[in-house]
């Protein structure tokens, strides 16, 4: 049974669960008051210093600064390191191992545990960054990371190389788990008039419009291999425009054929192996959940209850469990079932209201969703699916909906109206460090790619 209030004790338990789930040094710093209790207990993050990028050539653009700022933002938001303020750094900026005075970094006031550094230079083919990660408390130990990153002398490539360096650092410090700095977020944006599908880097950079259907496109969802995006599209056919399932290939930059069904179709979700798609269809009258192959073949229905059943979400770990939204009992709330539709169970919460937008964490242990309690607005919650313990991740900040997990299980992306317009935000999975990613027009329904 779910708990009724968010006591420090229950939070501590959830913190433990989160920490185990993330298998990392997760002690996110709390930016919101109601999370401060308990989050810092018993876990420390590695103190990491990132001196400026040493420039070994003359650059037409401020690429060394761009590189440094992007790596800094990636590491600062990773949730697993504690960035040492530059005001505590030794004066000398190391560009290569022979220039690193480890004891100066390990000593007060820096008190760094790790130092990530390197130098950027130009060569015939573009730019090259020589990157290093050193444990300054063990100066005789081999470098934790030593790698050359190459690209063109452009802002875009400097950002890409910086994300690679950041991900490599995270990989070392989290014991092999990959970072998310090179992942993408798909979303729907109406900034150019019609709602179309867009994609951006995980930090909001590089926003690009994918579709030009000049209709209404909604609810994009990345395929598990991050090569396709399934979404809801409004398409005219014989004078009637209805919601259908569309699939866009980001590999070939075009739409892939998917069958058209009667009535209203929407909210596609991928099976964990990418071979099947679950979606809502009213092809037999009532909006129910159906599953077909990714090509649309072998369609079969898995829900059978009067009312709307929609927003299917496959447990990505087991592939055998599904969460979905149904109003069969009155208001729309969450249900769990086996992915063949058997053993339907209502997910009981300690309060009434709307419960929508189920999203499983990558390890299949946490279910995030948005919940509008009778007293308030939509907020994002996460529930441990075994213990049914619950934690609120947003509060008093407009409507917060459509959570989607990053592949590291440490971050969520969601939509929020807290600025007065609907925008895409991300945050750490304990609700701290909210980052606004979009600013232009109205943006909604983010989906975080697996890689």
């Amino acid at each position, binding site marked *: 049974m779910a708990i009724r209030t968010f006591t420090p004790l229950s939070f501590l338990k959830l913190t433990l669960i989160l920490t185990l789930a993330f298998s990392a040094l997760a002690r996110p710093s709390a930016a919101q008051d109601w999370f401060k209790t308990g989050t810092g207990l018993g876990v420390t993050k590695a103190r990491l210093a990132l001196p400026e990028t040493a420039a070994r050539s003359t650059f037409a653009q401020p690429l060394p600064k761009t590189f440094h700022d992007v790596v800094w933002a990636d590491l600062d938001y990773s949730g697993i390191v504690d960035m040492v303020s530059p005001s505590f750094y030794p004066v000398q900026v190391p560009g290569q191992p022979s220039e690193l005075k480890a004891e100066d970094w390990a000593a007060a006031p820096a008190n760094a545990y790790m130092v990530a550094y390197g130098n950027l230079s130009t060569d015939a083919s573009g730019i090259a960054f020589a990157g290093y990660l050193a444990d300054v408390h063990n100066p005789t130990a081999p470098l934790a990371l030593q790698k050359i990153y190459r690209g063109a002398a452009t802002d875009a490539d400097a950002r890409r190389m910086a994300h690679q360096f950041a991900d490599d650092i995270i990989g070392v410090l989290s014991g092999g788990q990959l970072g998310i700095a090179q992942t993408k977020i798909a979303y729907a944006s109406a900034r150019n008039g019609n709602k179309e599908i867009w994609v951006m880097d995980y930090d909001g950079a590089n926003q690009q419009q994918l579709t030009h259907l000049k209709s209404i496109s909604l609810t994009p969802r990345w395929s598990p291999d991050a090569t396709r995006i399934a979404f809801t599209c409004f398409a005219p056919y014989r004078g009637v425009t209805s919601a259908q399932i569309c699939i866009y290939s980001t590999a070939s930059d075009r739409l892939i054929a998917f069958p058209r069904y009667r*009535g209203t179709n929407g909210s596609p979700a991928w099976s964990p192996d990418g071979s099947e798609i679950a979606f809502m269809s009213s092809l037999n009258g009532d909006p129910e959940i159906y599953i077909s192959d990714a090509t649309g073949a072998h369609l079969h229905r898995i829900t059978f209850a009067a009312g*709307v059943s929609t927003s299917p979400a496959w447990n990505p770990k087991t592939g055998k469990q599904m969460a979905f939204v149904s109003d069969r009992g009155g208001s729309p709330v969450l249900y769990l079932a086996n992915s063949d539709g058997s053993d339907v169970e209502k997910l009981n919460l300690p309060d009434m209201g709307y419960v*929508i937008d189920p999203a499983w964490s990558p390890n299949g242990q946490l279910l995030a969703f948005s919940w509008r309690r009778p007293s308030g607005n939509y907020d994002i919650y996460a529930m441990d699916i075994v213990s049914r313990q619950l934690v609120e991740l947003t509060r008093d900040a407009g409507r917060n909906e459509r959570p989607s997990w990053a592949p590291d299980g440490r971050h969520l992306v969601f939509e929020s109206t807290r600025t007065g317009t609907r925008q895409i935000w991300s945050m750490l999975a304990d609700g701290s460090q909210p980052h606004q990613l979009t600013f232009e027009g109205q943006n909604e329904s983010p989906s975080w790619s697996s890689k």
Partner: protein
Amino acid sequence: MHHSTFRKFTLLFGLVALVAIAGGCKKKVAATPPAPPPTPTLQPTVTLNASPTSVNPGGTVTLSWSSTNATDLDIEPGVGKVAPQGSTPVNPTQTTTFTITATGAGGSATASANVAVNGSSAPTAEAPTEQPGVNELFEQNVKDAYFELDKSDLRDDARAVLTKDAEFFRSYPQVKVSLEGHCDERGSTEYNLGLGQRRAEAAKNYLISLGISADRIETTSWGKERPFCTEHDESCWQQNRRAHFVLAH
């Protein structure tokens, strides 16, 4: 009269349907944020709705409208100049067709909403100077069904409206419609797509129970994607919880 005008109807009907389809996309997109206009001379579009569509004499009706590409808007009779979108209460004493005229750099557009006042006769019915087309008759006679929050079952007023709609469909057996479900902004995008479909299906099933053939009615749902009204209050939300008839062929 019906037989002699059928051909005219069919011709008109095709044109009207084309215009309706072409125009249909534009006008309700008013709910999306202002995008930079590609050219400064776009044709204005305007929609006008009345709720409820029938009242006792002196009863209050809410008119709500939205427009695109219009700078001057005028509602007659009795309201006058208004903002590009909004709503206002009116208290008609007799059956009245309210007409909004939207004028902008790209021309002008009009839309009408009829309010039936119980016990009075429609002035439009008294002085038809020319034979109305199917589109016009459809606009005058076929009214939308409205719903409660999160509900798709039919209220008494929706049943009454649909019963009258069925009379029209019996009189004009060539008319086919698409019945579009709409929802207010409070639910989720995904759930509302399903709920809108349920509303359209509920209205369709009621018409079928009144003897209208199922193959004349195509159902679809816009969820909360094409609101008729964009204020954040109940009078506006009620406008957006409906099964809306559109002529099809």
